[in-house]
Each structure stands twice: as C-alpha cells, then as structure tokens.
C-alpha cells in the first residue's frame, strides 16, 4: 500500500527556485505592544505575528519602536560588522589550515548584537555556537577569542575545546557546549538561583530552531513556567539545521514562539534581521522577567546565509541563491539604511567603519598567532590535558600524566 505518512515539505532544493512564501510576514509596526505584565495568553497574537520595527523605507515605526539614540544604533552596527568581518576572516583562516573548524553567523548578526545591547551587563548569557555577537557586544578581546580558535598558549579553554566554544565568566557568558540545547535548562536554573537569592539579574539563552526538538528545550520551558524563572529564552529560527529544513522541527504552518503560550510563558515572534525589533523584544522580555512576571520565549525569524560550519557545503541541499531573496533582508544593510535615513550615517562613515574593523581584526590576528597556532609554535603545556578534570589531580591522573610526559620526552617533544 502507499505510505500515508506526512513528510514535511521543503520549499526548494538545489536547482529549484527559492520559495519563501511559507514565511508569514507582518507589516512593520502592525503588532501591538502590551504592557510587560500582560497575562501569558495576551501574547498569543505576538507569538503568531511578527514584531517588526523597520519598514520598507528604513524608518522605525509602530509601538515596538525602542527609541534608541544614534550612538546605540551605531554601536549595534559596529558589533554586527565586527561579527561579520571576524567571521569572514576566521573562515579564511580555517581554509588556510590555521584553525581546525569555524562557524559563521552570516545573516543573523542582529540576533546577538541587539540582544546583548538590550540586556544588562550582569545578566547571564547562555549562547549556542552561533551567538558570537554576544561576545563582541560584551567587549571581549578579539585576541582572546582568536586564541581560543587557535588553541594557542593564550587559549581560554587551555586547548581543550573545539574552536568557537568560548566562555567568559568575567563578562557573564556561560561556556558554550557542543551538545545542542543543554544550555537552555541551565539558563533557567541560573535564573531560578537569581530569584532564590532575591537578585534582579536575569539570564538569557539561545538555541537554533532545529534544537527545539531536544529534550532540554522542553525541560527549560517547563521549569521556566513552573517557577516563573526570570529568563529570556531565544529560538533562532534560521530556517536550517545543517541540511534539515525547519519543517522537521515542527515549523510547518506553526510558529516556534507559540510553544511559549502553549506551555504557559509569554511568546514573541520577531523579525530577527531587524536590529530594532530584536532590541525591543529583548528589552520587553527582560523587563518582564526582571519585574517577576516570568520568562518569555522569543523566536527570531532569520536565515543562515552561510554554511552550517566549515565542514558543510549547503549547495548540496538548498538553492545557492536563497539569501538574495530572503524576505527579511540583511540585518547589516537594514540598520545601515535606517541610520542613513535618520541622517546619522553615510557611505563614507560606513566605509571608514568597515576599514577600521578590518584593521582591528587584522591586528588582533597578528597578535593572536604570535601566541602560536595549533600546528605552529604550539606551546601549551601538555600536562594541562590532565588538569581541571577534577579540582585536584587525583593520583591516577598524576600517573597518566607522568606516563605521557615520558612518552613525549621519548618522542622528542
């Protein structure tokens, strides 16, 4: 007999015409902005709508307009450009064999940049591997980030982690995990602890739409709902999970944000390529959490314009030119145009900024490689391999370390 199983529809495969008609778009300014203490069900229209601020003429419109000053907007633009420049440069470094692996966030830079700027410095961030913008926005040293990528002698992870698995205790950013979604319940636990201690810091976490299928996503939402944890939970719906279209995560004819009200927390669906919308939604959710009204689930609708990682070739599973017709555009282009519309920016400023950032990245790279790369001049002490498994080195690991050191001596290293 013929199979009756429903197989999610993928709108376009290589060689086919890109087709984004499935993306439900709402006009900029059309979504209402309820007070931050609105009951959960009051957010249903927002979870099914699309919060947008920038209109087609690059003006900021509607109730979600966050009324940011031009300096903040320029700061956002700079973070996004830095993200993109850094990404490009590191991708090239990977191609040259200087680093083993890299993951860009091309096309989704607004998601991290705007959120980090909307949150307070002491709010704790639980990123996925594609939220490098958070680190740039919080001002981490590029040399430190590059050193992690290079696993060199200045590597914050002491050589133990795949590139991009950064962290920063100082800047309140949790250690990135290679296991999808695990950070989501952790962020909720962090927020519960903040509430238990009576503190007003909140947490924010990010994962991809594909990762929402994992158990930890459900655990996070359940705990957030039960204890009204002060957390902002972000789904970055960039349409793809490696080769798997978002329909396979449950995105067919349903928003991911709707899972929020479904389980009893607020939900917002946001134009993830609209810096102002992401900022406004994050600020609203953060205030809601901080004031004790519980967590919000935010879906950022965006598009992963690059490959999944340097190990991936997206032309095998989707049309090459999808990003060109992505209906929500390019976040950098849109914020730039908005600033120009405001009279706060022009092409000359933009070129200067691009050059400045380019130079900053180049200088940082030169400094970073001076601390070694994985294959050249690598000088991390191999005994670090055995440290931090436990707080103290147990006798068994001491013995293993000594065995290795003897072996290395023999190998002439």
């Amino acid at each position, binding site marked *: 007999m013929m199979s009756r199983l429903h197989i999610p529809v993928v709108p376009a495969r290589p060689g086919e015409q890109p087709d984004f008609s499935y993306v439900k778009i709402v006009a900029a300014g059309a979504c209402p902005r309820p007070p931050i203490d609105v009951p959960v069900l009051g957010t249903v229209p927002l979870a099914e709508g699309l919060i947008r601020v920038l209109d087609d003429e690059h003006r900021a419109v509607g109730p979600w307009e966050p009324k940011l000053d031009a300096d903040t907007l320029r700061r956002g633009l700079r973070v996004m450009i830095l993200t993109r420049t850094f990404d490009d440069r590191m991708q090239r470094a990977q191609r040259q064999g200087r680093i083993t692996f890299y993951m860009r966030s091309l096309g989704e830079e607004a998601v991290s940049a705007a959120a980090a700027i909307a949150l307070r410095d002491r709010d704790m961030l639980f990123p996925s591997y594609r939220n490098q913008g958070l680190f740039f926005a919080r001002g981490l040293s590029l040399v430190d980030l590059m050193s992690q990528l290079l696993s060199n002698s200045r590597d914050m992870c002491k050589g133990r982690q795949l590139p991009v698995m950064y962290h920063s205790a100082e800047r309140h950013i949790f250690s990135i995990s290679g296991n999808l979604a*695990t950070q989501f319940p952790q962020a909720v*636990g962090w927020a519960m602890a903040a509430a238990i201690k009576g503190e007003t810091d909140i947490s924010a976490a990010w994962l991809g739409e594909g990762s929402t299928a994992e158990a930890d996503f459900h655990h996070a939402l359940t705990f957030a709902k039960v204890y009204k944890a002060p957390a902002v939970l972000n789904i970055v719906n960039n349409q793809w999970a490696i080769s798997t279209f978002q329909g396979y995560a449950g995105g067919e004819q349903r928003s991911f944000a709707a899972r929020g009200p479904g389980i009893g927390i607020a939900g917002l669906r946001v134009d993830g390529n609209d810096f102002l919308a992401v900022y406004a939604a994050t600020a609203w959710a953060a205030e809601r959490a901080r004031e004790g009204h519980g967590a919000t689930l935010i879906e950022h609708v965006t598009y992963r314009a690059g490959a999944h990682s340097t190990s991936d070739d997206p032309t095998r599973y989707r049309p090459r030119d999808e990003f060109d017709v992505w209906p929500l555009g390019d976040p950098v282009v849109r914020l730039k145009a908005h600033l120009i519309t405001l009279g706060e920016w022009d092409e000359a400023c933009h070129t200067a900024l691009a050059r400045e950032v380019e130079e900053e990245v180049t200088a940082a790279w030169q400094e970073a490689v001076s601390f070694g790369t994985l294959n050249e001049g690598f000088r991390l002490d191999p005994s670090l391999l055995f440290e931090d498994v436990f707080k103290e080195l147990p*006798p068994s690991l001491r013995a293993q370390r000594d065995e290795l050191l003897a072996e290395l001596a023999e190998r002439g290293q």
Partner: protein
Amino acid sequence: MNCWLSLQSEGSKAVPTMNMVQALNSAMDIMLTRNSDVVVLGEDVGYFGGVFRVTESLQKKHGTHRVLDTPIAEGGIVGAAVGMCANGLRPVVEIQFADYIYPAYDQIVSEVARLRYRSAAAFTAPLTIRTPCGGGIRGGQTHSQSPEAVFAHVSGIKTVMPSNPYDAKGMLIAAIEDDDPVLFFEPKRIYNGPFDGEPDKPAQSWAGHLLAEVPEGYYTVPLGQAAVTREGSAVTIVTYGTMVHVSLAAAAALDLDAEVIDIRSMVPLDVDTIAGSVSKTGRCLIVHEATRFAGFGAELSASIQEHCFWNLEAPITRVTGWDTPYPHAFEWEYFPGKRRVMNALRRLMGEQS
C-alpha cells in the same frame, strides 16, 4: 590504609543511633543550616519529604525556596542544577530511584562532568546527585538497579556509595562541600538496617550497630578513601554498599580470615588500600550487586591484577548480579546472596597456586 574508625567528629555530643535515612537527612539539614548556598531539589522531596523520607521536614525547616519540589524531569532537574551552580548555589539533587537517572544521563555526562574541563575552571558544577540504588526490596526491574559503572567510566564526576549511617552522613557532607560534582548512590536495602543477604530472616535494624552511632553535628568522611571493615589475611573481599554486609556475613559463616574492604568511593578509587590488602592476602573476591559484564567489578579486577599480579595466588573472582535485567519474582535467585559469596570464597580458597 585509611580507616574511617579513626575519624573525628566536630562538636558532637552524645552519640545517638541513626539509621541511614536519618543520617542522610541530618547531613542535609546541617548543610542547609551552615551554608545558605545549599539547596535541595527533586521529585517529592519538599512537602512530602521524599518517597524514602530522606528529606523529611527539611522543607518545613528551611523553606519552600531552598527545598524544592520539582517537575518530573530528571534531565531538567540536573540541567537546572548546573545553572544554579553557575550562579553560586550548591544544589543537592535527589533522583527518586537510580533506575530513573538515565533521562539525566546527557546532562550528567556531557555537562556536569565536563564543565570544569572545557571551561578551564571558569565554570564548575559542585552539585551532589543523591539516588537510591540496588535491589532486595521486591521493586522489580525499575526500582532495583545499580548503575554505578556507567557513571564511574565518565571522567570528571566522583562516584561514591556508603554502606552504613556513619559513612552516609560524613560522606554526604563531604560531597556537598566538594567542589567537584558527586554522584551519591544510596543502597536502599540498608536504609533501615544492615542486610546480610538472607531474605527469610527477620529484618535487622541499625540499632546497636557500631556504625549507626552517628554524631548529631557536623563531620566529614573524606571521599576517595576505602575502609577496611574487617581485617584478615587469607583473602581480600572488595565490595561496597549492601554487599559489604553480605560479604561480612559470608566470611563469618565460613569462619574465614577474610579482609573486607568497603571501597566507598568508586571515583576516586583508593587503589593503594585495595592493592595493599590483596598483595598481603594473595586472593581477591570482588562482590557487587550490579550485573557483571563490564560492571564496576571489571575495573576493580583489572586494577588489582595490574597492581598485584605477582602476589596473586588464584584468579580474582567476581560475584555479582547476573547479566539480566532485575527480575521481580526471581529476586533471591538474582541477588548475590550469602551462599553465592560463600561458594565463591570456597572455590577461591581451594585454588592452589
């Protein structure tokens, strides 16, 4: 040789008898009192006090915000606890039965155990996961398992199991104070009294047992140290949890000069104490409840063989649960009881070098 008998307790008055449930309860009560970062969470642990009553009255005493009832999601509980650690708390998690710890396996293996390493100690997970394990209570296959081996293999987490009230309290306090994550297995068959593996005998209570004299105050029993529970020179029995009592009974029944070592910690393992004993006796029997194949006894056997090869007078032998799921009706055919240990000891003593 590290022997718990020499341990001191601080500020303890008269020494009352406690069973293991009371001893564990007292450990948490003390730590909730001493350290405001300690929180207790798990299914039914709050108002109700836990299905085995181990957290009884802790919520009443320390409040609903420090002793939390949780949703039924072991993975969520551990995941949330990791986040709490990142925010400075020291969670003590209860997993209602060790048989239900598997939904949390990913958070434990991939997160709890790796966090310190992967972040070069920028973030750590000083949580304690308590869970009742083992059989002998007619609990069937989902209330009887002993899954310690699948955690002991995972680098980055300490794995321990006390066998008596004194150790239970001292080790739990040590676990809560430990800056590394600790998986704390509680052999539920001996919560209320020691058990020598003979189900038809009337249940024993802890009353009168030397190791049930538990100081009311704070004290610790260090993790990573085995206890020589009985000294002897003819054979070494290496065991832990409920099987300590079965092994003692078997040795006594045979009137055998057996040294019984309660390893107490699987990770870190006190190889020195164990190897010292086996080198002395030349014979070794390993006893645990868990299934044999690739169980923790395999590591004990391999380690002991590596350290004591030239002193061994007979093959190291394992007495364990059979390699099957835990069967309800065949509990006493499955459980490695006194007779099975005695038979193994007889065979082991009969082997000539």
